[in-house]
Protein backbone atom coordinates (compact mmCIF):
# COMPACT_ATOMS: atom_id res chain seq x y z
CA UNK A 1 0.00 0.00 0.00
CA UNK A 2 1.46 3.40 -0.91
CA UNK A 3 1.85 5.76 2.04
CA UNK A 4 -1.14 8.09 2.26
CA UNK A 5 -0.23 11.78 1.92
CA UNK A 6 -0.05 13.64 5.24
CA UNK A 7 -3.38 15.25 6.13
CA UNK A 8 -3.56 19.00 5.95
CA UNK A 9 -4.89 19.26 9.47
CA UNK A 10 -5.78 16.68 12.11
CA UNK A 11 -9.43 17.73 11.67
CA UNK A 12 -9.44 16.77 8.01
CA UNK A 13 -7.91 13.42 8.98
CA UNK A 14 -10.68 12.85 11.55
CA UNK A 15 -13.36 13.73 9.00
CA UNK A 16 -11.82 11.34 6.49
CA UNK A 17 -11.62 8.51 9.03
CA UNK A 18 -15.23 9.10 10.07
CA UNK A 19 -16.30 8.96 6.41
CA UNK A 20 -14.42 5.69 5.91
CA UNK A 21 -15.78 4.21 9.13
CA UNK A 22 -19.37 4.73 7.94
CA UNK A 23 -18.59 3.42 4.47
CA UNK A 24 -17.66 -0.02 5.80
CA UNK A 25 -21.26 -0.84 6.73
CA UNK A 26 -22.55 -1.61 3.25
CA UNK A 27 -25.53 -3.77 4.16
CA UNK A 28 -26.62 -1.33 6.85
CA UNK A 29 -26.52 1.43 4.24
CA UNK A 30 -28.64 -0.63 1.85
CA UNK A 31 -31.18 -1.37 4.59
CA UNK A 32 -31.31 2.31 5.51
CA UNK A 33 -31.83 3.41 1.91
CA UNK A 34 -34.70 0.93 1.63
CA UNK A 35 -36.33 2.24 4.81
CA UNK A 36 -35.94 5.92 3.85
CA UNK A 37 -37.40 5.17 0.44
CA UNK A 38 -40.42 3.31 1.85
CA UNK A 39 -41.11 6.13 4.33
CA UNK A 40 -40.71 8.71 1.58
CA UNK A 41 -43.19 6.89 -0.64
CA UNK A 42 -45.74 6.46 2.18
CA UNK A 43 -45.51 10.12 3.31
CA UNK A 44 -45.70 11.33 -0.30
CA UNK A 45 -48.78 9.19 -0.94
CA UNK A 46 -50.47 10.59 2.20
CA UNK A 47 -49.72 14.18 1.13
CA UNK A 48 -51.01 13.49 -2.37
CA UNK A 49 -54.22 12.24 -0.73
CA UNK A 50 -54.42 15.55 1.13
CA UNK A 51 -53.84 17.56 -2.05
CA UNK A 52 -56.51 15.56 -3.92
CA UNK A 53 -58.98 16.56 -1.22
CA UNK A 54 -57.80 20.18 -1.55
CA UNK A 55 -58.27 20.19 -5.32
CA UNK A 56 -61.88 19.10 -4.88
CA UNK A 57 -62.42 22.17 -2.74
CA UNK A 58 -60.78 24.39 -5.42
CA UNK A 59 -57.77 25.63 -3.42
CA UNK A 60 -54.93 23.39 -4.63
CA UNK A 61 -51.98 25.15 -2.97
CA UNK A 62 -51.36 25.60 0.76
CA UNK A 63 -49.37 28.66 1.78
CA UNK A 64 -47.83 28.68 -1.70
CA UNK A 65 -46.91 24.97 -1.59
CA UNK A 66 -48.41 22.73 -4.28
CA UNK A 67 -48.60 18.93 -4.46
CA UNK A 68 -45.33 18.50 -6.41
CA UNK A 69 -43.52 20.85 -4.05
CA UNK A 70 -44.80 18.95 -1.00
CA UNK A 71 -43.66 15.60 -2.40
CA UNK A 72 -40.25 17.09 -3.27
CA UNK A 73 -39.98 18.36 0.28
CA UNK A 74 -40.73 14.86 1.61
CA UNK A 75 -37.89 13.32 -0.39
CA UNK A 76 -35.41 16.09 0.46
CA UNK A 77 -36.42 15.36 4.07
CA UNK A 78 -35.77 11.61 3.79
CA UNK A 79 -32.43 12.35 2.13
CA UNK A 80 -31.42 14.73 4.94
CA UNK A 81 -32.43 12.54 7.92
CA UNK A 82 -29.04 10.87 8.33
CA UNK A 83 -27.05 13.93 7.22
CA UNK A 84 -28.30 15.86 10.25
CA UNK A 85 -28.45 12.71 12.45
CA UNK A 86 -32.16 13.18 13.05
CA UNK A 87 -32.46 9.96 15.07
CA UNK A 88 -29.67 10.82 17.49
CA UNK A 89 -25.91 10.92 17.66
CA UNK A 90 -24.40 8.58 20.22
CA UNK A 91 -20.68 8.76 19.41
CA UNK A 92 -19.72 11.50 21.86
CA UNK A 93 -22.14 10.54 24.66
CA UNK A 94 -20.83 6.97 24.54
CA UNK A 95 -17.27 8.23 25.04
CA UNK A 96 -18.27 10.45 27.94
CA UNK A 97 -20.18 7.61 29.53
CA UNK A 98 -17.31 5.16 29.16
CA UNK A 99 -14.77 7.72 30.41
CA UNK A 100 -12.89 7.58 27.12
CA UNK A 101 -13.42 11.32 26.75
CA UNK A 102 -10.37 11.67 29.06
CA UNK A 103 -8.20 10.54 26.18
CA UNK A 104 -9.79 13.02 23.76
CA UNK A 105 -9.12 15.83 26.22
CA UNK A 106 -5.40 15.05 26.27
CA UNK A 107 -5.02 15.37 22.52
CA UNK A 108 -3.53 18.62 21.20
CA UNK A 109 -6.76 19.51 19.37
CA UNK A 110 -9.83 21.60 20.08
CA UNK A 111 -12.40 19.07 21.33
CA UNK A 112 -15.37 20.89 19.88
CA UNK A 113 -13.84 21.20 16.39
CA UNK A 114 -12.59 17.62 16.57
CA UNK A 115 -16.12 16.27 17.08
CA UNK A 116 -17.48 18.72 14.52
CA UNK A 117 -15.09 17.29 11.93
CA UNK A 118 -16.04 13.78 12.98
CA UNK A 119 -19.74 14.60 12.51
CA UNK A 120 -19.32 16.32 9.15
CA UNK A 121 -17.20 13.42 7.88
CA UNK A 122 -20.09 11.00 8.51
CA UNK A 123 -22.56 13.49 7.05
CA UNK A 124 -20.58 13.63 3.82
CA UNK A 125 -20.87 9.87 3.50
CA UNK A 126 -24.59 10.01 4.29
CA UNK A 127 -25.23 12.64 1.60
CA UNK A 128 -23.75 10.32 -1.01
CA UNK A 129 -24.94 6.93 0.22
CA UNK A 130 -28.15 7.64 2.15
CA UNK A 131 -29.27 10.92 0.62
CA UNK A 132 -29.02 10.64 -3.13
CA UNK A 133 -30.49 7.11 -3.64
CA UNK A 134 -33.92 7.68 -1.96
CA UNK A 135 -34.18 11.05 -3.73
CA UNK A 136 -33.49 9.44 -7.11
CA UNK A 137 -36.12 6.74 -6.46
CA UNK A 138 -38.55 9.48 -5.41
CA UNK A 139 -37.85 11.35 -8.64
CA UNK A 140 -38.56 8.20 -10.65
CA UNK A 141 -41.78 7.22 -8.84
CA UNK A 142 -43.22 10.72 -8.36
CA UNK A 143 -43.22 13.98 -10.24
CA UNK A 144 -40.70 16.06 -8.24
CA UNK A 145 -39.86 19.73 -8.73
CA UNK A 146 -36.36 19.57 -10.25
CA UNK A 147 -35.19 23.06 -11.24
CA UNK A 148 -33.43 23.61 -14.57
CA UNK A 149 -31.58 26.53 -13.02
CA UNK A 150 -28.06 25.20 -12.22
CA UNK A 151 -27.40 28.02 -9.76
CA UNK A 152 -30.31 26.87 -7.61
CA UNK A 153 -28.72 23.40 -7.36
CA UNK A 154 -25.44 25.02 -6.30
CA UNK A 155 -27.15 26.97 -3.51
CA UNK A 156 -29.03 23.82 -2.50
CA UNK A 157 -25.74 21.87 -2.27
CA UNK A 158 -24.24 24.66 -0.14
CA UNK A 159 -27.28 24.64 2.14
CA UNK A 160 -26.89 20.86 2.65
CA UNK A 161 -23.33 21.47 3.88
CA UNK A 162 -24.65 24.29 6.08
CA UNK A 163 -27.31 21.96 7.50
CA UNK A 164 -24.67 19.37 8.43
CA UNK A 165 -22.55 22.02 10.17
CA UNK A 166 -25.52 23.40 12.17
CA UNK A 167 -26.52 19.83 13.10
CA UNK A 168 -22.96 19.04 14.24
CA UNK A 169 -23.03 22.05 16.60
CA UNK A 170 -26.48 21.12 17.89
CA UNK A 171 -25.61 17.48 18.64
CA UNK A 172 -22.32 18.49 20.25
CA UNK A 173 -24.28 20.70 22.63
CA UNK A 174 -26.89 18.00 23.41
CA UNK A 175 -24.18 15.37 23.89
CA UNK A 176 -22.57 17.44 26.62
CA UNK A 177 -25.55 16.58 28.84
CA UNK A 178 -23.79 13.24 29.32
CA UNK A 179 -21.37 15.02 31.67
CA UNK A 180 -24.23 15.70 34.09
CA UNK A 181 -26.61 12.79 33.60
CA UNK A 182 -25.47 9.64 35.34
CA UNK A 183 -26.50 6.53 33.46
CA UNK A 184 -28.55 6.58 30.33
CA UNK A 185 -28.66 9.78 28.23
CA UNK A 186 -30.82 8.21 25.52
CA UNK A 187 -33.86 9.98 26.95
CA UNK A 188 -32.32 13.40 26.30
CA UNK A 189 -31.22 12.44 22.81
CA UNK A 190 -34.72 11.20 22.06
CA UNK A 191 -36.28 14.40 23.38
CA UNK A 192 -34.06 16.31 20.98
CA UNK A 193 -35.07 14.00 18.12
CA UNK A 194 -38.74 14.60 18.86
CA UNK A 195 -38.49 18.38 18.66
CA UNK A 196 -36.23 18.18 15.61
CA UNK A 197 -38.59 15.89 13.69
CA UNK A 198 -41.48 18.25 14.26
CA UNK A 199 -39.82 21.65 13.72
CA UNK A 200 -37.63 20.63 10.78
CA UNK A 201 -40.64 19.91 8.57
CA UNK A 202 -39.73 16.23 8.22
CA UNK A 203 -43.09 14.97 9.49
CA UNK A 204 -45.16 17.53 7.59
CA UNK A 205 -44.08 20.55 5.49
CA UNK A 206 -44.15 23.65 7.68
CA UNK A 207 -46.48 25.40 5.19
CA UNK A 208 -49.26 23.11 6.37
CA UNK A 209 -48.91 24.23 9.99
CA UNK A 210 -51.23 26.82 11.56
CA UNK A 211 -49.38 30.15 11.25
CA UNK A 212 -48.42 30.59 14.94
CA UNK A 213 -46.87 27.11 15.16
CA UNK A 214 -45.28 27.60 11.74
CA UNK A 215 -43.59 30.82 12.87
CA UNK A 216 -42.29 29.12 16.01
CA UNK A 217 -40.95 26.13 14.05
CA UNK A 218 -39.31 28.38 11.45
CA UNK A 219 -37.36 30.25 14.11
CA UNK A 220 -35.58 27.11 15.37
CA UNK A 221 -32.23 25.87 14.02
CA UNK A 222 -34.05 22.71 12.91
CA UNK A 223 -35.94 24.44 10.10
CA UNK A 224 -32.53 25.55 8.77
CA UNK A 225 -31.48 21.86 8.63
CA UNK A 226 -34.26 20.56 6.37
CA UNK A 227 -37.26 22.75 5.53
CA UNK A 228 -35.23 25.76 4.32
CA UNK A 229 -32.77 23.77 2.16
CA UNK A 230 -35.77 22.08 0.52
CA UNK A 231 -37.31 25.51 -0.07
CA UNK A 232 -34.08 26.69 -1.69
CA UNK A 233 -34.46 23.83 -4.15
CA UNK A 234 -38.12 24.76 -4.72
CA UNK A 235 -37.09 28.39 -5.22
CA UNK A 236 -39.16 29.79 -2.34
CA UNK A 237 -36.17 30.66 -0.11
CA UNK A 238 -33.06 32.57 -1.07
CA UNK A 239 -29.87 30.48 -1.08
CA UNK A 240 -27.43 33.19 0.09
CA UNK A 241 -29.88 34.24 2.81
CA UNK A 242 -30.11 30.66 4.09
CA UNK A 243 -26.32 30.36 4.27
CA UNK A 244 -26.28 33.49 6.44
CA UNK A 245 -28.99 32.05 8.71
CA UNK A 246 -27.10 28.75 8.95
CA UNK A 247 -23.85 30.57 9.71
CA UNK A 248 -25.56 32.51 12.49
CA UNK A 249 -27.00 29.32 14.00
CA UNK A 250 -23.67 27.50 13.72
CA UNK A 251 -21.76 30.31 15.44
CA UNK A 252 -24.39 30.74 18.17
CA UNK A 253 -24.60 27.01 18.95
CA UNK A 254 -20.82 26.70 18.79
CA UNK A 255 -20.34 29.47 21.37
CA UNK A 256 -22.97 28.02 23.70
CA UNK A 257 -21.32 24.62 23.25
CA UNK A 258 -17.91 26.03 24.25
CA UNK A 259 -19.39 27.70 27.34
CA UNK A 260 -21.13 24.49 28.41
CA UNK A 261 -17.99 22.46 27.70
CA UNK A 262 -15.83 24.66 29.91
CA UNK A 263 -18.37 24.26 32.73
CA UNK A 264 -18.41 20.50 32.16
CA UNK A 265 -14.63 20.29 32.30
CA UNK A 266 -14.50 22.24 35.55
CA UNK A 267 -16.53 19.57 37.29
CA UNK A 268 -15.55 16.56 35.20
CA UNK A 269 -15.10 13.26 36.97
CA UNK A 270 -13.96 10.55 34.63
CA UNK A 271 -15.83 7.28 34.91
CA UNK A 272 -13.96 4.05 34.71
CA UNK A 273 -10.48 2.99 35.70
Amino acid sequence: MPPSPPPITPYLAVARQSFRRQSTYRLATAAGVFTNTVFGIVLAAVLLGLYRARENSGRPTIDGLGAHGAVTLVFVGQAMLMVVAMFGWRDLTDRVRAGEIAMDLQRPVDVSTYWGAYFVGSSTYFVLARGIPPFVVGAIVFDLVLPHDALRWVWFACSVVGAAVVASRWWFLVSLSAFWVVGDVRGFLQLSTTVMLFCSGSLLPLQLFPSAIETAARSTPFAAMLQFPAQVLLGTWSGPMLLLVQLAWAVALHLVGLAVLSRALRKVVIDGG
Partner: protein
Amino acid sequence: MAEQTALGARNDVRAFSLLAGARVRSELQYRSSFAAFTLSQTAITFLDCAVILIFFSNVPAIGGWSRGEVLYLYAVATLSLGFADFAMGSIEYLPQHVRTGTLDRLLVRPAGVLAQLLAEEFALRRIGRIVQATIVLTVVIATTDVEWTFTGSLVAVAGAIGAMLTFCALFLATSSISFWSPNTQEFANAFTYGGATVAEFPTHIFPSWLRVFFIGVVPAGVVVYLPAMYALGADNPLGIPTWVQVLSPLVCLPALAVGGLVWRLGVRHYESTGS
Protein backbone atom coordinates in the same frame (compact mmCIF):
# COMPACT_ATOMS: atom_id res chain seq x y z
CA MET B 1 -45.99 -33.93 24.60
CA ALA B 2 -48.80 -31.42 25.16
CA GLU B 3 -48.01 -31.54 28.87
CA GLN B 4 -44.38 -30.83 28.16
CA THR B 5 -45.24 -27.86 25.96
CA ALA B 6 -47.49 -26.46 28.68
CA LEU B 7 -44.71 -26.91 31.22
CA GLY B 8 -42.26 -25.22 28.84
CA ALA B 9 -44.59 -22.28 28.34
CA ARG B 10 -45.06 -21.87 32.11
CA ASN B 11 -41.33 -22.03 32.61
CA ASP B 12 -40.86 -19.36 29.93
CA VAL B 13 -43.41 -17.05 31.52
CA ARG B 14 -41.67 -17.46 34.89
CA ALA B 15 -38.23 -16.82 33.39
CA PHE B 16 -39.54 -13.77 31.56
CA SER B 17 -41.17 -12.22 34.64
CA LEU B 18 -38.11 -12.81 36.84
CA LEU B 19 -35.67 -11.32 34.33
CA ALA B 20 -37.94 -8.47 33.23
CA GLY B 21 -38.62 -7.58 36.89
CA ALA B 22 -34.89 -7.25 37.49
CA ARG B 23 -34.59 -5.00 34.44
CA VAL B 24 -37.38 -2.72 35.68
CA ARG B 25 -35.75 -2.37 39.10
CA SER B 26 -32.42 -1.43 37.52
CA GLU B 27 -34.17 0.99 35.14
CA LEU B 28 -35.81 2.83 38.01
CA GLN B 29 -32.41 3.48 39.62
CA TYR B 30 -31.72 6.24 37.08
CA ARG B 31 -34.67 8.52 37.82
CA SER B 32 -33.94 11.57 35.66
CA SER B 33 -33.13 9.40 32.68
CA PHE B 34 -36.31 7.37 33.16
CA ALA B 35 -38.38 10.55 33.42
CA ALA B 36 -36.79 12.07 30.30
CA PHE B 37 -37.30 8.90 28.34
CA THR B 38 -40.95 8.37 29.31
CA LEU B 39 -41.67 12.06 28.76
CA SER B 40 -40.04 12.03 25.33
CA GLN B 41 -41.90 8.85 24.31
CA THR B 42 -45.19 10.44 25.27
CA ALA B 43 -44.16 13.69 23.57
CA ILE B 44 -43.21 11.87 20.36
CA THR B 45 -46.60 10.21 20.11
CA PHE B 46 -48.31 13.44 21.11
CA LEU B 47 -46.56 15.20 18.22
CA ASP B 48 -47.68 12.35 15.91
CA CYS B 49 -51.20 13.13 17.00
CA ALA B 50 -50.61 16.87 16.47
CA VAL B 51 -49.44 16.06 12.94
CA ILE B 52 -52.84 14.50 12.20
CA LEU B 53 -54.68 17.45 13.73
CA ILE B 54 -52.55 19.86 11.66
CA PHE B 55 -53.20 17.68 8.63
CA PHE B 56 -56.96 18.10 9.13
CA SER B 57 -56.64 21.85 9.62
CA ASN B 58 -56.05 21.88 5.83
CA VAL B 59 -58.82 19.49 4.70
CA PRO B 60 -62.12 18.28 6.22
CA ALA B 61 -61.61 14.63 5.16
CA ILE B 62 -59.12 12.38 3.39
CA GLY B 63 -60.36 9.59 1.13
CA GLY B 64 -63.84 10.25 2.51
CA TRP B 65 -62.76 9.58 6.13
CA SER B 66 -63.32 12.36 8.65
CA ARG B 67 -60.88 13.61 11.26
CA GLY B 68 -62.48 11.49 13.99
CA GLU B 69 -62.32 8.35 11.87
CA VAL B 70 -58.65 8.88 10.99
CA LEU B 71 -57.83 9.66 14.64
CA TYR B 72 -59.44 6.33 15.53
CA LEU B 73 -57.14 4.59 13.01
CA TYR B 74 -54.22 6.52 14.46
CA ALA B 75 -55.08 5.53 18.05
CA VAL B 76 -55.48 1.81 17.25
CA ALA B 77 -52.31 1.77 15.10
CA THR B 78 -50.33 3.52 17.85
CA LEU B 79 -51.76 1.23 20.52
CA SER B 80 -50.76 -1.83 18.48
CA LEU B 81 -47.28 -0.54 17.75
CA GLY B 82 -46.92 0.51 21.39
CA PHE B 83 -47.99 -2.92 22.65
CA ALA B 84 -45.63 -4.72 20.26
CA ASP B 85 -42.79 -2.38 21.25
CA PHE B 86 -43.54 -2.84 24.96
CA ALA B 87 -43.74 -6.62 24.79
CA MET B 88 -41.11 -7.26 22.12
CA GLY B 89 -38.99 -4.09 21.88
CA SER B 90 -35.93 -5.94 23.23
CA ILE B 91 -35.83 -7.98 20.06
CA GLU B 92 -34.19 -4.95 18.44
CA TYR B 93 -31.05 -5.99 20.33
CA LEU B 94 -30.98 -9.38 18.60
CA PRO B 95 -28.50 -8.16 15.91
CA GLN B 96 -26.02 -7.23 18.66
CA HIS B 97 -26.34 -10.70 20.20
CA VAL B 98 -25.84 -12.35 16.84
CA ARG B 99 -22.88 -10.13 15.93
CA THR B 100 -21.04 -10.55 19.20
CA GLY B 101 -22.07 -14.16 19.83
CA THR B 102 -23.70 -13.38 23.19
CA LEU B 103 -26.80 -15.30 22.12
CA ASP B 104 -24.85 -18.40 23.20
CA ARG B 105 -25.44 -17.38 26.80
CA LEU B 106 -29.21 -17.51 26.27
CA LEU B 107 -29.07 -20.79 24.35
CA VAL B 108 -27.39 -22.72 27.16
CA ARG B 109 -29.78 -21.61 29.89
CA PRO B 110 -32.72 -23.86 30.79
CA ALA B 111 -35.43 -21.46 29.53
CA GLY B 112 -36.86 -20.45 26.17
CA VAL B 113 -34.52 -18.28 24.09
CA LEU B 114 -37.24 -15.88 22.98
CA ALA B 115 -38.54 -15.39 26.54
CA GLN B 116 -35.04 -14.56 27.78
CA LEU B 117 -34.30 -12.29 24.84
CA LEU B 118 -37.52 -10.31 25.36
CA ALA B 119 -36.70 -9.90 29.06
CA GLU B 120 -33.08 -8.93 28.42
CA GLU B 121 -33.74 -5.28 27.49
CA PHE B 122 -37.31 -5.05 28.79
CA ALA B 123 -38.11 -1.43 29.66
CA LEU B 124 -41.05 0.01 31.55
CA ARG B 125 -40.54 3.38 29.86
CA ARG B 126 -41.88 1.93 26.59
CA ILE B 127 -45.34 2.11 28.15
CA GLY B 128 -45.49 5.83 27.22
CA ARG B 129 -46.87 5.14 23.77
CA ILE B 130 -49.59 2.80 25.10
CA VAL B 131 -50.72 5.38 27.66
CA GLN B 132 -50.96 8.14 25.07
CA ALA B 133 -52.79 5.93 22.53
CA THR B 134 -55.32 4.87 25.18
CA ILE B 135 -56.03 8.50 26.04
CA VAL B 136 -56.52 9.44 22.37
CA LEU B 137 -58.70 6.37 21.77
CA THR B 138 -60.91 7.21 24.75
CA VAL B 139 -61.32 10.83 23.68
CA VAL B 140 -62.05 9.85 20.06
CA ILE B 141 -64.67 7.27 21.03
CA ALA B 142 -66.31 9.73 23.42
CA THR B 143 -66.42 12.64 20.99
CA THR B 144 -66.96 11.00 17.58
CA ASP B 145 -70.55 10.61 16.48
CA VAL B 146 -70.77 6.84 15.87
CA GLU B 147 -73.67 4.47 16.44
CA TRP B 148 -71.91 1.72 18.46
CA THR B 149 -73.70 -1.58 17.82
CA PHE B 150 -72.94 -4.80 19.70
CA THR B 151 -71.28 -6.51 16.72
CA GLY B 152 -69.49 -3.28 15.82
CA SER B 153 -67.94 -3.07 19.31
CA LEU B 154 -67.05 -6.75 19.18
CA VAL B 155 -65.25 -6.32 15.84
CA ALA B 156 -63.52 -3.19 17.19
CA VAL B 157 -62.15 -5.08 20.21
CA ALA B 158 -61.18 -8.10 18.11
CA GLY B 159 -59.59 -5.70 15.61
CA ALA B 160 -57.47 -4.02 18.29
CA ILE B 161 -56.26 -7.39 19.64
CA GLY B 162 -55.63 -8.67 16.12
CA ALA B 163 -53.64 -5.55 15.26
CA MET B 164 -51.51 -5.83 18.43
CA LEU B 165 -50.67 -9.45 17.64
CA THR B 166 -49.96 -8.64 13.99
CA PHE B 167 -47.46 -5.95 14.98
CA CYS B 168 -45.82 -8.41 17.40
CA ALA B 169 -45.50 -10.82 14.47
CA LEU B 170 -43.97 -8.05 12.34
CA PHE B 171 -41.39 -7.29 15.04
CA LEU B 172 -40.56 -11.00 15.35
CA ALA B 173 -40.32 -11.74 11.62
CA THR B 174 -38.34 -8.65 10.59
CA SER B 175 -35.90 -8.77 13.50
CA SER B 176 -35.24 -12.48 12.96
CA ILE B 177 -33.72 -11.53 9.60
CA SER B 178 -30.67 -10.45 11.60
CA PHE B 179 -29.80 -14.14 12.13
CA TRP B 180 -28.73 -14.04 8.49
CA SER B 181 -27.51 -10.43 8.27
CA PRO B 182 -26.96 -8.66 11.62
CA ASN B 183 -26.39 -5.19 10.12
CA THR B 184 -29.81 -4.66 8.62
CA GLN B 185 -31.96 -3.78 11.63
CA GLU B 186 -33.09 -0.63 9.87
CA PHE B 187 -34.74 -2.82 7.27
CA ALA B 188 -37.17 -3.90 10.01
CA ASN B 189 -38.21 -0.29 10.67
CA ALA B 190 -39.65 0.00 7.16
CA PHE B 191 -42.15 -2.74 8.04
CA THR B 192 -42.87 -2.02 11.72
CA TYR B 193 -42.82 1.78 11.96
CA GLY B 194 -43.58 2.12 8.24
CA GLY B 195 -46.49 -0.27 8.68
CA ALA B 196 -47.82 1.75 11.61
CA THR B 197 -47.65 4.95 9.53
CA VAL B 198 -49.62 3.27 6.73
CA ALA B 199 -52.17 1.99 9.24
CA GLU B 200 -52.81 5.55 10.49
CA PHE B 201 -54.56 6.40 7.21
CA PRO B 202 -57.39 4.74 5.27
CA THR B 203 -55.61 2.22 3.03
CA HIS B 204 -57.56 3.22 -0.09
CA ILE B 205 -55.75 6.60 -0.35
CA PHE B 206 -52.52 4.79 -1.32
CA PRO B 207 -51.71 3.92 -4.95
CA SER B 208 -52.66 0.32 -5.78
CA TRP B 209 -49.08 -1.05 -5.99
CA LEU B 210 -48.32 0.28 -2.51
CA ARG B 211 -51.64 -1.11 -1.27
CA VAL B 212 -50.77 -4.58 -2.57
CA PHE B 213 -47.53 -4.47 -0.57
CA PHE B 214 -49.18 -3.33 2.67
CA ILE B 215 -52.05 -5.79 2.34
CA GLY B 216 -50.49 -8.88 0.83
CA VAL B 217 -46.91 -8.79 2.13
CA VAL B 218 -47.12 -6.74 5.34
CA PRO B 219 -50.74 -6.86 6.57
CA ALA B 220 -50.49 -3.48 8.37
CA GLY B 221 -52.86 -2.03 5.78
CA VAL B 222 -55.59 -4.54 6.72
CA VAL B 223 -55.62 -5.13 10.46
CA VAL B 224 -56.43 -1.59 11.57
CA TYR B 225 -58.32 -0.32 8.51
CA LEU B 226 -60.94 -3.04 7.97
CA PRO B 227 -62.18 -3.58 11.56
CA ALA B 228 -62.37 0.21 11.93
CA MET B 229 -64.35 0.51 8.70
CA TYR B 230 -66.89 -1.99 10.01
CA ALA B 231 -67.10 -0.59 13.54
CA LEU B 232 -67.35 3.07 12.49
CA GLY B 233 -69.43 2.44 9.35
CA ALA B 234 -66.87 4.52 7.42
CA ASP B 235 -66.62 5.12 3.68
CA ASN B 236 -65.77 2.01 1.64
CA PRO B 237 -64.72 3.16 -1.86
CA LEU B 238 -62.99 -0.15 -2.67
CA GLY B 239 -66.26 -2.02 -2.00
CA ILE B 240 -64.80 -4.51 0.46
CA PRO B 241 -67.45 -7.13 1.42
CA THR B 242 -68.80 -6.99 4.97
CA TRP B 243 -67.71 -10.54 5.84
CA VAL B 244 -64.10 -9.66 4.94
CA GLN B 245 -64.29 -6.66 7.26
CA VAL B 246 -65.67 -8.76 10.11
CA LEU B 247 -63.13 -11.59 9.71
CA SER B 248 -60.14 -9.27 9.10
CA PRO B 249 -58.74 -9.48 12.68
CA LEU B 250 -57.95 -13.15 11.97
CA VAL B 251 -55.13 -11.99 9.68
CA CYS B 252 -52.99 -12.00 12.82
CA LEU B 253 -52.98 -15.83 12.82
CA PRO B 254 -51.05 -16.40 9.57
CA ALA B 255 -48.87 -13.39 10.48
CA LEU B 256 -47.94 -14.98 13.82
CA ALA B 257 -47.31 -18.33 12.10
CA VAL B 258 -44.90 -16.70 9.63
CA GLY B 259 -43.20 -14.73 12.42
CA GLY B 260 -42.72 -17.89 14.50
CA LEU B 261 -41.42 -19.80 11.50
CA VAL B 262 -38.81 -17.17 10.58
CA TRP B 263 -37.68 -17.04 14.22
CA ARG B 264 -37.29 -20.84 14.48
CA LEU B 265 -35.43 -21.05 11.15
CA GLY B 266 -33.20 -18.22 12.37
CA VAL B 267 -32.33 -19.91 15.67
CA ARG B 268 -31.52 -23.08 13.77
CA HIS B 269 -29.35 -21.11 11.34
CA TYR B 270 -27.42 -19.41 14.16
CA GLU B 271 -23.78 -20.36 14.44
CA SER B 272 -21.88 -18.65 17.21
CA THR B 273 -19.00 -16.28 16.52
CA GLY B 274 -16.57 -18.93 17.67
CA SER B 275 -14.94 -16.85 20.37
